[in-house]
């Protein structure tokens, strides 16, 4: 495989930007969480690409990536529980309608 490292980094940058666009432009809180998941995955892809190209001999980066995936799973569980709690309160998951803290 003779793909240079930069290809993976640029792919991860594009995916991160797509996730950011989703988190910024959508009304539904669940889609905002999905955009955050896309950003998480592109960051972890970066980690694995650096492992493959620079430190192939030791599996440390894979463990790091695994723990990142675990923390991302915990984050999405808490985030979706919050979305359900907010839905019970506001009867909506529109992030523009959650303005209880607005001055």
């Amino acid at each position, binding site marked *: 495989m003779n793909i240079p490292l930069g290809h993976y980094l640029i792919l991860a940058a594009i995916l991160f930007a797509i996730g950011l666009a989703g988190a910024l432009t959508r009304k539904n809180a669940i889609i905002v969480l999905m955009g955050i998941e896309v950003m998480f995955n592109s960051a972890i892809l970066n980690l694995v690409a650096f492992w493959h190209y620079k430190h192939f001999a030791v599996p440390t980066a894979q463990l790091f990536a*695994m723990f990142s*995936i675990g923390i991302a799973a915990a984050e999405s569980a808490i985030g979706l529980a919050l979305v359900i709690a907010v839905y019970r309160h506001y009867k909506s998951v529109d992030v523009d309608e959650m303005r209880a803290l607005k001055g």
Partner: protein
Amino acid sequence: MNIAFWIISAVAVLGAVLAVTLRNLVHCVLALILFFIGIAAHYFLLHADFLGTVQILIYVGAVAILILFAIMLTHNVTGTDGPRELLGLKWWSGAAIAAMLAVVLTRAIQGDKLAAALPAGDRAQSSVAEIGKALVGGWVVPLEAIAVLLTAALIGAVVIALEEIRKSR
């Protein structure tokens, strides 16, 4: 292997774009699953076999289903959704910010010497055995810490989601 990289990248980017642009929320989750599988295929391509399996099990198996359940609990099954305004600007202002970030990151990566690095070489056996030894060896404390974190997240998610029911009783 080059052609595999381009095909998998195209699938992953397509999945990500569809996941954040489609109107139907269930279709969004299906596109997100496509994206997760593309990332897992990239892990296999990078010889991180165990990580690719973990990606499929956790993201496709757990997170995507969790999101589907959240959609079913908060919306009609085919709930739809439109773009929002950001800080009083039109919806495309957020997309413009993201596009600018992509351009800046791409320029920075292209200007870096490290980006031209090529892989150190392929090896015959997978790294799963090494990961297993590391997880029960030097990495056992982080492993237990993440077990505690996941338990706390489980309890926290239940407490947060059940709050209103407890109050009304």
